[in-house]
């Protein structure tokens, strides 16, 4: 069956509108009461798009281009969160209105649209970006125009800004716990590092190498990078076979991902013969790769759809109700879902929509309803979070086999650079 995202979104939007209309008389009273308690002149001193009944936020992802594959999940999750917030009374008694812009997988377009959202639309917050490159492109805009960005992707770290809340994990959080576990579990001494050729895999592998060599006292027997979009991995696979590493550590992304795992399987490198740990395959990527092709490989990240806790059950249920039974939720999708909730919490804590106040109020904010469990914003605007290890299953899901304690975010790790 063809899956039409847009029409589904449209349908659900229509439903949501109906629901809101139906709920209006009910909500009218408490809403306005709350809004009166926080008059617009008080909560909005910097001319943001906040009225007595409404607050406008921006959503900035790639709906088109090569990155649309990855960013669609984030768009959906953020919308879900905003709907839920609206259904429970909005933020400071104000309904959230979304302006969605398409970054079109093109970094200057991201910068352009970010500026539009901040300067023309005066949005109170922006949920968006996926790749590091797009974030780097918009960052100066956010800092100059003083906006607030909620950035959902796990990324390489080495960044910290007053104007960004990083809801995904930075590299050390994701990498170190995973390596520790696999080294202990498999008694691994030799590692083969593979990545797509850009900043996140390279930085991550650098951290991994330091950790392997200095802490685990293991050995890195190979480190390889392939351009994004590579479709032929035969030579690489032969090198892996030649080296016979205890663990293959893979950070291949994008369309290359599928080619890499399919060819790996076809070459007989399967989980019964080779341990593989990845930090770049979520349930989203599994859709394209096919569960049967990665069965038994390990992934390290903070969230899996299969996480067994009440928050997650509710979240998965709501997500499927909105976007269809077949939809899957990956790590970044969940992190994107946190964005609007964290913003709401910050606004309520600050009692204001002003960016400066939100930025100041954010550290220390806890989110107990997070599907991944409990998260808390660190002083460095990253999240405290746990790291899990999942084993890929044939049906495209992961089985969670390990869970770390809360890990402190450390975007500028000393000794790992």
């Amino acid at each position: 069956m063809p899956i039409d995202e847009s029409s589904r979104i449209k349908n659900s939007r229509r439903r949501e509108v109906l629901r809101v209309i139906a709920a209006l008389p009910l909500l009218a009273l408490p809403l306005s009461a709350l809004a009166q308690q926080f008059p617009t002149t008080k909560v909005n001193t910097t001319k943001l798009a906040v009225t007595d009944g409404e607050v406008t936020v921006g959503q900035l992802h790639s709906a088109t281009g090569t990155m649309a594959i990855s960013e669609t999940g984030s768009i959906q999750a953020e919308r879900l969160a905003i709907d839920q917030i609206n259904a429970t009374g909005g933020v400071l008694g104000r309904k959230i209105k979304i302006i969605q812009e398409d970054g079109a997988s093109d970094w200057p377009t991201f910068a352009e649209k970010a500026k539009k959202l901040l300067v023309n639309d005066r949005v109170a917050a922006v949920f968006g970006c996926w790749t590091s490159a797009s974030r780097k492109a918009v960052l100066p805009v956010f800092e100059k125009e003083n906006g607030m960005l909620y950035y959902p992707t796990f990324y390489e770290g080495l960044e910290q800004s007053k104007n960004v809340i990083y809801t995904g994990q930075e590299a050390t959080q994701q990498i170190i716990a995973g390596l520790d576990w696999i080294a202990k579990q498999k008694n691994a001494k030799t590692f083969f590092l593979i990545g797509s050729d850009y900043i996140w895999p390279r930085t991550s592998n650098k951290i991994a190498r330091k950790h392997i060599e200095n802490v685990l006292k293991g050995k890195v027997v190979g480190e390889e990078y392939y351009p994004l979009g590579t479709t032929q991995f035969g030579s690489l696979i032969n090198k892996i076979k030649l080296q016979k590493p205890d663990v293959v550590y893979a950070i291949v992304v994008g369309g290359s991902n599928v080619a890499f795992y399919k060819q790996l399987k076809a070459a007989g490198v399967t989980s019964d013969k080779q341990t593989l740990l990845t930090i770049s395959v979520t349930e989203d990527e599994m859709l394209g790769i096919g569960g049967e092709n990665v069965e038994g490989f390990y992934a390290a990240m903070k969230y899996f759809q299969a996480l067994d806790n009440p928050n997650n059950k509710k979240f998965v249920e709501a997500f499927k109700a909105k976007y269809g039974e077949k939809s899957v939720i990956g790590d970044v999708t969940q992190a994107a879902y946190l964005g609007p909730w964290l913003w709401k919490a910050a606004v309520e804590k600050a009692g204001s929509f002003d960016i400066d106040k939100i930025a100041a109020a954010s550290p220390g904010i806890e989110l107990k309803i997070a599907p991944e469990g409990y998260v808390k914003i660190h002083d460095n605007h990253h999240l405290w979070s746990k790291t899990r290890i999942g084993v890929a299953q044939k049906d495209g899901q992961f089985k969670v086999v390990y869970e770390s304690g809360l890990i402190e975010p450390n975007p500028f790790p000393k000794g790992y650079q």
Partner: protein
Amino acid sequence: MSWFSEFGAILAMQGFNGLSVFCVLLLMALGLAIIFGQMGVINMAHGEFLTIGAYTTYLFSSLTTSYAPAFAPYYFFFAIAGAFLIAFCVGYLVEWGLIRHLYRRPLDTLLATWGLSLVMQQAFRSTFGAKEVSATLPDWLMGSVKPSESIDIPINGLFVMGLTVILTGMLALLLYRSQWGLRVRATTQNRIMSGAVGINTRRVDRITFALGCGIAGIAGAAFTTIGSTGPTSGSLYIVDTFLTVVLGGAASLAGTIASAFTIAQTQATAEFFMHGSMAKVLTLSAVVLILMMRPQGLFSIKVRR
């Protein structure tokens, strides 16, 4: 087991890998090559015809899993046929609606087909969603053959190879042994004369273009075994495809084969000795240099112009 026999095994597998890259390149370039040979133009939407093939396979796969699970091991062959048919028909329409108006302006065709590729990508996105999909491949396709303890020969690689050999053979027969092939070659060499001796050159063009697209569809179906299926998957292959075809030259099928072989061997060898990115740079530079030496591609016919 000695290190040497192991090294030998790697060597054997690496050799197979080179061949396999060669076949992939050839397969994706084949359809474009006959279009390039016929019109002297690069169809920038070629990658999207590959994608058509991939999505067709996905559709067949979904239908099979939903309605006839028992049929799963065999559906792939029907998917390939389906991919050919659909891509052929789309190609036929595209030629009729677009290409035929531009025969006298080859470089413009290049631009127009790029516009077409944008439209097709968005069409895929609207129909199948922005996320990648995965056709469930028959189990027999995804294993490997083990001629010895340490050698694994991927079956999907073998399959792509076999398909490439068969397709290339059929195409060669069609071009050089059939009545139709004669017409195609006549039209390529002298359009006006061919028209004068009663060849319907319009028809020849249209069928050739559609055939090239159909072959791209087959290639796309075959590539679901080694690659991804998404709205922009086809674009992963296009640059390699262009280079293969252009390096081969417009003159003959043999040029394309030689060119695919050259690029594949350069790439496979380079990748084994250096990082993938540098290997890519080296391969591309080699192609540019060869083109400098042979401005009309590897196999250009020397004739009195």
